[in-house]
């Protein structure tokens, strides 16, 4: 079984995003960039499927600037077999990403697409669902458990107030939630080996996909600041303040 794992290069999750003074966007110059945490979980799950003998090949794909090669090398070091970079400096919307992935899938014919539920920059949580819709493949989002058997994926999903289990026919799109697994750190020998694994760079234009943005960003502003309040000395003092001053008890 062949697994395709799309990954995104984003601001490192430990770095606080800062808005540019001209409000044109978030300042990413000289900021640490890493693989999106949910993508990392998806790569880890694919590697575990391979270790269990369920998956035979893992292809990792990224759409982004030339530096996204580093992100792909990370997935190769974790255990992906080869990688594809669709190079662009344009910031693409989820619908455009889904259409490009559909084009990659037409060439690669994977049995399973395993991807993160959300990228922590745009916070859209949409690409997997959109890809599934335009492929007419079933979807299983927010997965916390994945089992593959007999041409089907049994997926436990995080839903409001609990867990839901569904079964989808393969090929399917599965998006990873936090509890699916804890991604490994790539070992030094694996990082060295990853440098020799194949990484194809393709031009965005060669796919002939309409990636024109549908949303125009008017401005990006700082959120309203919340100022710190006061320190209280005792719990009794706190209850008193909540009752009389804040009126919330």
């Amino acid at each position: 079984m062949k697994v395709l794992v799309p990954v995104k290069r984003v601001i490192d999750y430990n770095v606080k995003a800062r808005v540019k003074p001209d409000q044109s966007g978030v300042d990413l110059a000289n900021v640490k960039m890493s693989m999106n945490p949910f993508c990392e979980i998806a790569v880890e799950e694919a590697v575990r499927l391979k270790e269990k003998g369920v998956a035979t090949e893992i292809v990792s794909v990224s759409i982004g600037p030339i530096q996204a090669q580093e992100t792909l090398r990370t997935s190769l070091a974790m255990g992906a077999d080869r990688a594809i970079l669709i190079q662009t400096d344009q910031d693409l919307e989820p619908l455009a990403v889904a259409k490009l992935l559909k084009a990659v899938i037409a060439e690669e014919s994977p049995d399973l697409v395993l991807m993160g539920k959300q990228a922590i920059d745009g916070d859209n949580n949409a690409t997997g669902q959109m890809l599934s819709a335009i492929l007419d493949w079933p979807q299983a989002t927010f997965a916390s458990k994945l089992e593959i058997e007999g041409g089907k994926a049994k997926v436990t999903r995080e839903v409001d107030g609990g867990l839901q289990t569904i079964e989808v026919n393969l090929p399917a799109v599965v998006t990873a939630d936090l509890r699916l697994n804890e991604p490994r750190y790539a070992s030094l020998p694996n990082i060295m080996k990853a440098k020799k694994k194949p990484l194809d760079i393709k031009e965005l234009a060669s796919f002939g996909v309409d990636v024109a943005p549908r949303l125009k960003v008017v401005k990006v502003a700082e959120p309203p600041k919340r100022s710190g309040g006061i320190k209280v000395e005792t719990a009794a003092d706190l209850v008193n303040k909540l009752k009389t001053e804040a009126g919330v008890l």
Partner: protein
Amino acid sequence: MAVLVIADHDNASLKDNTHKTVTAALQLSGDVDVLVAGQGAKAVAEAAAKIKGVRKVLLAESDALGQGLAEAVEALVVPLMANYDAVLTPATSQGKNFSPRIAAKLDVAQITDVTEVVDGSTFVRPIYAGNAMETVTSSDAKKVITVRPTVFKAAEEGGSAAIESIDAGAAPAKTHFVSQELVKSARPELSGAKIVVSGGRAMGSAEEFQRVIDPLADKLGAAVGASRAAVDAGYAPNDYQVGQTGKVVAPELYIAIGISGAIQHLAGMKDSKVIVAINKDADAPIFQVADYGLVADYKVAVPELMDALTAAGK
């Protein structure tokens, strides 16, 4: 311009998120219909008909809709969009599951997690875990929008819209529901609770988390939340998680106990009306957003807080 709101419900009762999404929809148009897609959900439709400002309620029922399968909701809604210029869904895990499918099938962008309606095609939404607010204008003919319910006031009751039953559409052939396990709790639901008590990594174990946080929450009639660090460490289940990667809450009162205040947690609770932080580290970032901070070890502070609440008649 006519707008469709997809109701949030559990087949038995209508959730408040629907009322809040109707408020956002009414800022776009006076012609707002509500779709109840479920199974055995007549009471939900009747409740939706009572929301002030709703023109009509559409009720579609099938097993697949009752199970909330995304493919079924999409197959139902996409043809309906011939009659609507926009569809609004509360950004719950359910809404997030099916809404992007509708957008993709209509070949339009989804405008995600909207916190402000500027005009008919301009919206504000948080990005980077709420560290930036993006204003976007959509050029698409039809708008597919998810709404962050916590920032909108619930539409009032007092309407009497007609309920129209419609065809449920096709059931998905390649997706099958297996089971659902919902956590049964006497406590209010986290995303809609008036008071939330959250615990962090400082608790040190699941037993300690339950020993400290649960009684305080029960005393206040509050929902229980947790930081991602506490969830990752296994001290609390994932559906307790408040933050960018969990639930976004905005209660009247949010009490953070032993939570340092990582960016990702603040993104999920900074719109709360009053924030209380109890932490022994006076430099913890949580104090920068807290209205009332108590620098103390929770092991001492929480029992004292329980006593003070008892003394105050709670």
